[in-house]
């Protein structure tokens, strides 16, 4: 059982595209760009406290990340509201990650890139708490990313955020 921001404990395990898992029907509220933003928001909330550094990084990514650059301020607001509703409704960040990972399109390198951005956000305050580590492990599993690759991503982002 895992505990995430919001106070509840939920078993968080999902397998995106796993043969035994039914494919989630597309959610029109969660187009690709909203899935990406939702995962970044979830990463910032993973330790239950959104640090100013984490907010700054998300704001910067909204301007520069190819997957989100076309979002209008209204779309961003709408997406953040949907994210808050999901987190509030299920009382956990993990429910948001589950939903966003299921809706994230399978595109070359998209899962890896989003995971790297999330690690960068989680490490923006220079520390990776156990709950953040667990969040990233679960996200990597949900996106079916190889452990060797996610370890490399965490290593490089730790180097980067050390100073």
């Amino acid at each position: 059982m895992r505990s995430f921001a919001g106070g509840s404990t939920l078993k968080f395990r999902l397998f995106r595209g796993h043969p035994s898992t039914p494919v989630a029907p597309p959610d029109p509220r969660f187009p690709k760009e909203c899935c990406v933003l939702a995962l970044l928001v979830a990463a910032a909330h993973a330790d239950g406290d959104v640090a100013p550094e984490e907010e700054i990084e998300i704001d910067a990514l909204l301007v520069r990340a190819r997957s989100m650059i076309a979002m209008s301020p209204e779309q961003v607001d709408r997406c953040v509201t949907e994210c808050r509703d999901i987190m509030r409704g299920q009382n956990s960040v993990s429910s948001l990650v589950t939903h966003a990972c299921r809706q994230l399109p399978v595109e070359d390198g998209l899962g890896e890139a989003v995971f790297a951005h999330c690690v960068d956000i989680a490490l923006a305050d220079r520390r990776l708490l156990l709950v953040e580590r667990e969040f990233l492990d679960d996200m990597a599993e949900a996106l079916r990313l190889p452990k060797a690759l996610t370890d490399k991503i965490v290593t490089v982002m730790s180097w980067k955020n050390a100073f």
Partner: protein
Amino acid sequence: MTSPASALKPRWSLARCQFILICAAALIDRELKPEEQTEVFAIASRTPTLTEISQEVIQGIWDDVFAHHQRNDLMSLVRTAIDDLPKDPKLALSTYAHAADVAHADRRIDRRELRFLNTLAKDLKLRPADRRLVDEIMDLKNRH
């Protein structure tokens, strides 16, 4: 041998050196992309070393780097920043990773950027395997 004059020259602070190298990564291809500028200022606003200095000082460093860039003299500033950066392997890796992230922000590395990253990696004495790993992950991260 260090000359008396250079021995007396005040060394730049860690923050100044690091920020100059990060700014240079955005400007080295002679074309400042919005993605790169956004990343530079995000780094300045959130990186512990840089948040210790005021916004005015950050702006002053940026203006200085930009002026050198316009005079085609960016590399002289880069060389001084590399010389004055404290010799700490972890700081070198962090600085290189920030610079590589900025350079990759527009999803392509041109020959000027590559030459700059090569210089940085060599002069900061990065292990080739570490440098390759940083480049690989920054490329992957900035693809989407």
